[in-house]
């Protein structure tokens, strides 16, 4: 169970038999990698470049603007109120992450370290939800949010932050991820803590959490991107400006300013910025966190 150990820059100790062949191989590898990187990056490059063009330049599909027009961003914000949507998205995302953290840490700890009846069954049921396509849950959830199925506080959650956060403050994936990690916490620690009279909650808070920063970070990062990038759900539960998230703002902007490619791209860049910042600062954590998800439990 060494799967949480991040991959070190270990290299396979291959001995090369033929130096020229090896060099050609190396060059080929670089060529493939660089071409791949260009493909991965090109849409981003083009997005930024186009966002700085005049409309005329976009019509000719230039690669670079003659003079970068930074006011396109101001115009996009003014036209589509991206500033307002950014705030909404941030509130929703932070709210979701806070809830997600609490529910998944507690549940993951229970599944990993507490023996209780039904835990296996519940865990399996949780895992099963990972397989369910959103199309199945979307309609009932929508009715639920409207308060048509069960009475909910406030009557209806349409156009509220509740609708945008509550359904996402727990998910099987985060619980699974944290459980994998919590299982590896040495039993000796728990034994020692119990000797000191600690109960589960104290042990969790004082011992387990401080050593679980990495997986918690991963859960947070996933929570952030998932919530930020959400599209179909906010599309159906928000009906006015006040609650609209950036993704919905951008999609509406496609309809409104679809022909003004430069403004549209400026809008797209705006929606990307928070994710990009987060990614650039945590990318190591991010990729390593994701890597742990791929390994068998």
């Amino acid at each position: 169970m060494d799967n949480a150990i991040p991959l070190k820059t270990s290299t396979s100790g291959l001995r090369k038999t033929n130096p020229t062949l090896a060099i050609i191989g190396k060059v080929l590898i670089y060529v493939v990698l660089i071409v791949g990187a260009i493909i991965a990056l090109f849409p981003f490059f083009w997005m930024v470049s186009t966002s700085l063009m005049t409309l005329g330049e976009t019509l000719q599909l230039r690669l670079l603007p003659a003079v970068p027009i930074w006011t396109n961003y101001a115009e996009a914000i003014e036209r589509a109120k991206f500033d307002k949507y950014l705030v909404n998205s941030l509130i929703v995302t932070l709210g979701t992450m806070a809830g997600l953290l609490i529910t998944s840490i507690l549940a993951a700890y229970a599944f990993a370290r507490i023996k209780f009846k039904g835990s296996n069954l519940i865990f399996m049921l949780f895992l099963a939800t990972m397989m369910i396509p959103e199309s199945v849950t979307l309609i009932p959830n929508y009715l639920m949010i409207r308060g048509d199925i069960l009475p909910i506080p406030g009557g209806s959650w349409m156009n509220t932050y509740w609708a945008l956060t509550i359904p996402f403050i727990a998910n099987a994936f985060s619980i699974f991820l944290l459980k994998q990690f919590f299982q590896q916490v040495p039993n000796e620690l728990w034994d020692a803590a119990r000797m000191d009279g600690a109960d589960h909650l104290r042990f969790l808070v004082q011992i387990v959490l401080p050593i679980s920063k990495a997986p918690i970070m991963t859960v947070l990062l996933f929570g952030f991107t998932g919530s930020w990038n959400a599209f179909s759900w906010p599309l159906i539960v928000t009906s006015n400006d006040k609650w609209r998230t950036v993704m919905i703002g951008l999609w509406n902007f496609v309809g409104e300013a679809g022909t003004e490619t430069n403004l549209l791209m400026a809008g797209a860049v705006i929606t990307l910025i928070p994710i990009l910042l987060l990614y650039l600062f945590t990318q190591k954590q991010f990729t390593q966190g994701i890597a742990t998800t791929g390994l068998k439990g």
Partner: protein
Amino acid sequence: MRSKLFGLFAVVMIAALVLGACAKPTEVPPVVEEPVVEEPVVEEPVVEEPVVEEPVVEDPWAGVEPAKEITFWHNHSGDREAILLKIVDDFNATNEYGITLTAEVAGSYSDIYKKMLPVLNTADVPDIVVGYQNQIAMYQLADAIWDMNEIIDNPTYGLSGDDQADFLPTFFKQDVYSLYDNQRLGLAPNRSMEVMYYNLSWLKQMGYEAAPTTMEEFRAMACDAVANPFEKGTGEETPVGLAMRMDASNFASWVFAFGGDIFDYTTNQFTLDSPAAIEAWTFLQGLAKDGCLRVVDGYNDQVQFGAGKSLFTVASSSGLGVYYPKAIADGVGEMEWSVAALPTTTGQVKPNIYGASVSIPKSTPERQLAAWLFIKYYTSKDVQTYWATETQYFPVRKSVAAEMVDFFGTYPPYETAWNLIEFGAFEPPVPGYDPIREEMKITMAALLEDPTLIVQDELTLLNTTANQILADQLAQIEQ
């Protein structure tokens, strides 16, 4: 459940109103003569007297205080939003009832439609909403739109007979739904029309004098344009005669131009495969086959017209003032252009007139009254003049058109379009037309993209689907 609850609520509200209406006059005198406690008892019969004399005083609105804060969901973004906001600000500043209206851009017409469905009959509805007739008809399946007949003739708040007669009859009647016992579910603040935009400079360059009036001319010009690119054209797009956006109103416009209709109002059935429709689509498919017509995405028809890459487009007259001039300024810079009715096969033009109306979702009498007061303001003569002049929408009052003579002078294309109004036809105001429009788009694109498809087969299929959807929707009225 919901509607029952609402009914109960309404009864309670009305009871409260009636009580309120009776109580009000009695409350005033006691203030003057405070010491006499028994006074109100004495005064009560006085209040009842007029009721006996003339029943008219039983005005349901007499005691209703308009709500102070109401919202308006609309689709006007950019410049139009600013124009509307000015109207709203003026209303907020000047209305004698202290009503504050908040106007919110709630997305495109179809966004608003999708957003309305879930909130119908809940407290989340806006007080005023823009919508096309078919969308309003859909809302009314849930009995969710307030019938303005309850107030339109009211002496205090309604519109006088003269006022009502000032509205263009075709526009005024459009929001009265025979499907729903002639309820008035909206009022038109503006109308537009599908017109043909043409690049006169380009036509002249090719040796033509004026816009086409017959299909043969249209075809000749559109196909000439491919071989004779506009000298001032910019960008790398290949020139075409007609850049066509996939839009159901475009579908209807062409069928009208071929002398047909897309709906039969006697049988209440779609006729998307009528002989005129087949003729129209055979014609358009032929153009596409020969490369004279191109299908475009979004509003690229406008962009390509502006860039001098499309000789004609068929689009809303509401683009006359802002969108088309902007597209041209961004594209070729300057050129001679105008609008005309689509060419016809019958010699009789029949433009497609449309436009969203404003409706009041059912809520409370206070909110409904406040909403109505804004709509009354919005459709009043001066406001209409401002709205129409600034947006290049058509006004809904005859008196406004008379005021706009100067404007007509500066915008000849607008006058051209305005003069076509009396010949206009409408798209059907039936529930389910929104999804049907989606089906129409797909069939339109299919026919134009694939010249091997047989027009009649595709249209018959489309018509069957459309009538099926309509039947499904109508079945809900009976439930």
